[in-house]
């Protein structure tokens, strides 16, 4: 009898707790899978927010086109979302939002302010993928590629390395971008998704920091940067000399860099790249015995390219590789002093690139 009393007491207690209405049914929710932020034309301050909302449904057929695009304008992102809420009958759920597309124009000047909404909200994944949309975010979200299983799935697959692994694609998560924006000594960078008819292509990227116009990289520079930063080893390098031309398929790649300081207070950035691979394609006949020569050739070409890229960063005072952070990590003193010193040292720093190439063969033919 006593047990029964206790049990019923527990029962009543649990029932009291269940009166909340915090949880809404799945069919009363609208799952946002992607968000796009664009700048409005007329208003300087405002944003145009586009949400890609997927409809939950049973069955496993292709659902790539089962989505709705909702967009609204507002002076802040939160305000625009409020207005979008007025357009849908379901509760917007941001918990599954895996991709954030920023319009090209949003990127200029105050990117930190734009990202604030994303990092402050608790329901937005810190592992959401971020990319720049060209010509604008809305166009990217509205594309319906063929054979998509879920809305926006193709876009996720590009970035999260579960699908394709391309040397042009740079993966950037939300927390990662926020870190780069806050950190003194490294600048942010994002891949650019170009809209094509029924598809995307990702071949370039953009480097940016607070208060400065972004720096767009070319295809070749993007590839080189990914190689340096990510140690991306599934790529081919074009080696082009007077009478030799071949493509080097990279097997392994390792990049190291050091910041050295000489007596005269000037610093030099030493970059060492170890690369090994086989020759993938050639327009002239290659000799197995001449591998040493090919090594030299590859080293020369790569050294030149990397030097050029780093000089470009230095010229524009951008530092996406994180040399400044490395400088801070290897010096003592207060952080403000280090940062001040670095800012005056970086534009005059010497850059030494050393590439050690090791071509292991000419493929299965000579």
């Amino acid at each position, binding site marked *: 009898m006593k047990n029964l009393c206790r049990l019923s007491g527990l029962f009543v*207690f649990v029932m009291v*707790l269940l009166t*909340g*209405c*915090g*949880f809404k049914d799945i069919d009363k929710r609208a799952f946002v899978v992607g968000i796009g932020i664009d700048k409005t034309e007329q208003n300087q301050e405002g944003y145009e927010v586009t949400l890609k909302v997927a409809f939950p449904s049973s069955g496993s057929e292709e659902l790539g086109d089962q989505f709705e695009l909702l967009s609204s304008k507002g002076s802040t992102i939160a305000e625009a979302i409020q207005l979008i809420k007025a357009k849908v009958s379901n509760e917007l759920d941001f918990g599954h939002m895996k991709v954030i597309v920023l319009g090209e124009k949003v990127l200029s000047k105050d990117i930190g302010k734009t990202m604030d909404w994303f990092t402050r909200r*608790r329901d937005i*994944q*810190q*592992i959401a993928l971020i990319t720049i949309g060209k010509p604008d975010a809305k166009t990217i979200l509205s594309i319906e590629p063929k054979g998509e299983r879920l809305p926006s799935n193709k876009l996720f697959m590009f970035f*999260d390395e*579960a699908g394709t692994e391309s040397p042009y694609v740079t993966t950037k*998560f939300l*927390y*990662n971008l*926020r*870190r*780069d*924006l*806050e*950190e*003194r*000594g490294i600048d942010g960078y994002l891949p650019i998704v170009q809209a094509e008819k029924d598809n995307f292509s990702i071949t370039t990227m953009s480097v940016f920091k607070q208060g400065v116009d972004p720096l767009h990289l070319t295809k070749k520079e993007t590839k080189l940067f990914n190689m340096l930063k990510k140690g991306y080893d599934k790529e081919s390098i074009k080696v082009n000399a007077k009478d030799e031309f071949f493509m080097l398929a990279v097997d392994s790649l390792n990049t190291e860099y050091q910041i050295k300081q000489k007596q005269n207070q000037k610093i030099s950035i030493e970059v060492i790249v170890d690369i090994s691979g086989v020759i993938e394609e050639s327009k002239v006949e290659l000799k197995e015995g001449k591998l040493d020569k090919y090594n030299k050739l590859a080293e020369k070409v790569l050294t030149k390219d990397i030097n050029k890229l780093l000089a470009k960063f230095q010229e524009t005072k951008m530092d996406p590789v*994180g040399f400044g*952070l*490395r400088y*801070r*990590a*290897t*010096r*003592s003193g*207060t*952080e403000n002093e280090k940062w001040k010193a670095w800012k005056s040292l970086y534009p005059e720093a010497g850059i030494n690139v050393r590439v050690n190439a090791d071509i292991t063969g000419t493929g299965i033919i000579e």
Partner: protein
Amino acid sequence: MSRYFYYLVILNMLANVVALVPRILIEERVNGVVTSLMIAIIITLIYCLVYTNSMLKFPGQGQPEIIKKYTPKWFASGYLFFIGILYFLGTWFVLLSFIDITKRFINPEMPALYISVLFLSIICLGALMKTEKTLYALEIIMIISLPLITGIFLKAFLNEHISWDAIRIVFTHTIEPPSNTSIGAGAYSLVGFYFISIYNRVLKNRVEGMGVWRIVLIGIAGTINIFTSLLVPIGMNGIDGAENYIYPWFSTADALRMEFGFIERVLYIFLLLYIGISMISATITCHIAMEHVRSVLPEIKWKEVKIVPVMMAILFSLATILGYFFLSQVQVYELAKMFFSLLLFAGAFSCAVLFYAVRRSKQK
């Protein structure tokens, strides 16, 4: 040494993530935090050696019995009451943070009062159980959570996006004067051995002495744990970006990704594990607090039921709910800093008192 003793020590190491310790350490990250942590670990290990060995001289007895037997009555009541209040405060901080975490990360629409009542009812009922039974609950939770939490820690360190340069910056500030708050916060993660003050009653005949090797083992585990809880949030969120997070570890868990795990967002797994850890941690500290305080209060019975512990549970629940509604997060954070520094001195005092009791017992 009985495995239960290790559970108690490890429990507090894990629970520090909820108890605002990482945030305090991160705030001090460029002010000689490495030195502070080293000092904290050494001090606590000395306390651990003295305290545990002294407790083990009295097999089957808890701190209240020992203190009452060998010290004057006025001192014993004051001291035990004070220690009880300290344990209550420890529970209070864990609970306040976890109620806030639940509200922020799990369900912002649920009223804070419901969350508090839900947690408090579990903790108070748990704390009113027999000492031995709380240990069994602890074992179950540890067996489930420990491997998964270790996995998450490892996953964080092996993440390719972690910024090792940011972590290296912390070490460039090693040779700088340590601060009192970071020593206190660092020491808090290792204070699990104090729980033996009550659990000594049930660890009878299962426990031998506390040798040097065991201390070294606990020291290594503690060092790894406290540096993990400081460095991983810095590596994931950056040396300059880490300071803005209110619950650094929960934001860090959200930045981790298990592509082929059950759930891609590690945050939810982490939250689930930490509900368990913080509930059992609060239950155990609350139980110890009650045992201390009731030992100095007269036993009152009402219809065959001892009502003093129940009254304490109700009072504590009220204090928690009032604390949540009347104190801002900033105030709780400042109080926690003071509390951790206070614990350092209280630890020294406790060790001294117990040492005195051991000497008295030998004289008799």
